[in-house]
């Protein structure tokens, strides 16, 4: 029982990072229609940023904040400099993002190297409640993710601003005619999603070592979670992410670790074919024209 709860928390922390990726994907892909295969690289950059800054002697928290801000800035620049030109031809954006992910990975390898990088535990130790020991850092990851999810959910899914945002992204022509600044919304969403991915990376490196390829590993899980839940559905991402994180975690501890990702991928394919709007309902991406 004790082990079970500990495994639960561990799985939750892994699920948290996947959820953060999934939120970015679901917002960007689902609401703006930009398909950014390099989204995983934002996670990687967030992690590397923290590693670099901590290496220069910064504390973990300032490093995290600065790193996330930088990733957000990179996202902003990419949206303005590249993706905004692909809005009417999303397949071009997708192909360009394939190139972008290769570039980002290898620029990092060029500047540093391809070996795995880690930082000293920012919050070592455990909390004990009764017999159960919770690794402090993992709990922090879960809590931070929960806060981000709540903020995102209430801003985008519930507030009037969020409603206008989603409506206008669903029907761009009408919204533009109504004077809603679509382009600005798209930029905001893209930057926010990228920053969240960066945050995921900053949290990940506090838990595990990271290589420049961590982005490719996580992006597929992020896509899987977002597509399984239904694009644009933030609550759905949480649900799907929890389920998958738990499956991953428990399969790692008790079952067959090699097949872990296979379950996620298999489920994603099945859902895409038989229920493309996702388990919990969502868009399939905004209509083009």
């Amino acid at each position, binding site marked *: 029982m004790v082990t079970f709860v500990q495994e639960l928390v561990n799985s939750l922390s892994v699920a948290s990072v996947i959820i953060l990726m999934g939120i970015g994907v679901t917002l960007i892909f689902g609401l703006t229609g930009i*398909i950014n295969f390099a989204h995983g690289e934002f996670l990687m950059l967030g992690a590397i940023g923290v590693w670099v800054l901590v290496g220069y002697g910064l504390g973990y928290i300032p490093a995290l904040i600065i790193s996330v801000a930088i990733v957000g800035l990179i996202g902003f620049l990419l949206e303005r400099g*590249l993706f905004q*030109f*692909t809005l009417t031809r*999303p*397949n*071009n954006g*997708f*192909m*360009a993002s*394939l*190139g*972008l*992910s*290769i*570039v*980002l*990975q*290898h*620029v990092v*390898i*060029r500047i540093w190297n391809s070996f795995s990088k880690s930082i000293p535990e920012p919050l070592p130790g455990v909390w004990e409640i009764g017999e159960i020991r919770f690794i402090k850092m993992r709990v922090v990851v879960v809590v931070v993710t929960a806060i981000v999810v709540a903020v995102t959910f209430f801003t985008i899914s519930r507030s009037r601003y969020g409603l206008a945002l989603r409506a206008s992204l669903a029907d761009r022509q009408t919204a533009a005619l109504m004077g809603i600044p679509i382009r600005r919304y798209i930029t905001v969403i893209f930057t926010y999603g990228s920053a969240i991915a960066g945050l995921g990376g900053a949290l990940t490196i506090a838990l595990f070592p990271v290589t420049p390829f961590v982005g*490719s590993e996580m992006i*597929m899980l992020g*896509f*899987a979670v977002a*597509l399984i839940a239904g694009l644009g559905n933030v609550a759905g991402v949480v649900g799907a992410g929890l389920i998958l994180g738990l499956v991953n975690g428990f399969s790692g501890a008790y079952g*067959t670790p*090699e*097949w872990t*990702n*296979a379950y996620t*991928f*298999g489920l*994603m*394919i099945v859902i*895409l*074919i038989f229920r*493309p709007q996702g388990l919990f309902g969502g868009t*399939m*991406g905004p209509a083009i024209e």
Partner: protein
Amino acid sequence: MTDPPRPSSVRRPRNSAWPSPGALILTALVVIGVFAFPWLNPGYRALSFAVTTGITAIVLYGMAIPFGQAGIMSLGYAGLMGFGAYTAAILSRDFGLNMWEAMPFSALIAALAAGLFGLPSLRISGHHFAITTYVMCELLRIALINGGKFTGAATGLDLPPIGTVFGVKLDKLSNTYMLVAAFMFISMLAAYCIANSRYGRTLRSIRENEQLARSIGVNANMHKVGAFMVSGLFAGVGGDLQAYNFRHISPDLYGGATSLYFALMVMLGGPRTLFGPLAGAIIVTFLPEVMRIDPVDSRIAYGLALIAVVMLLPGGVIAAAGRFYQWAARTLRGARAGASSTDPGASWT
């Protein structure tokens, strides 16, 4: 009833069943150049990379059919090649079949897998489908790693040498090179014939306007899956050749990342030009190794090149080169006022 007004300034693409003399000469030069390569004493390393490049080009010519003609991108081609390679390896290990005997099996199994991988494209759109194929490729890789003794697990499988054909020792590298070059040109020719056939035209109609195509009787679903299966044949042959060339295959050769590089190559070179796939393979696989460019730097360059090509040079490098050539030819001849080409350059379709 009066005729509709005739256009005056729009230049028509050449309407002829045969390629132009310029294209034929260029093709002849390329063929000669490729076959003459070993005699230039390139050295073992360069020759070896050339073989790999040639095998890759075979797969890329297969990709040109569903991607270039029907317009559907798949990121699963490394997996299809893997089907071909592992089929060859397993048939060699368990039944003693050699490369030639295994080839039809490799091609067929890869074609069936391609049809299967392609089925989701009937239900889901472009980028969703591309992601699905990437994921399926990764699933295959996981399955291979966990396949125990059957697939050799993470270590992989070994293969015997290709052997002798008509007295020619094919495990000598320069002979292997010739063999691969021959297969590559056959693939190029096959892809060209398919693209310029009635079948190719049907695929293009699906790419251009699927709804209209359906309304006039085109069974789009069947054609899409069929196009994938055809591309699988090429990938299977490539896998068989690769397995015997490397003498050792392992799951990591056939994952999503490799598929990404295939897609990159074909997009860079251009999927709808005769030399596009070959150029893409050369630029990405051959040039940097032979020019001893640091692999990390070269990948940064490809990524940037791909972004540039996608955003600025639709149709790939070869098509852009073709346009440039036409522009240069016109400028040297003296431009006629109003003449403009509506066709994207040296496209074969």
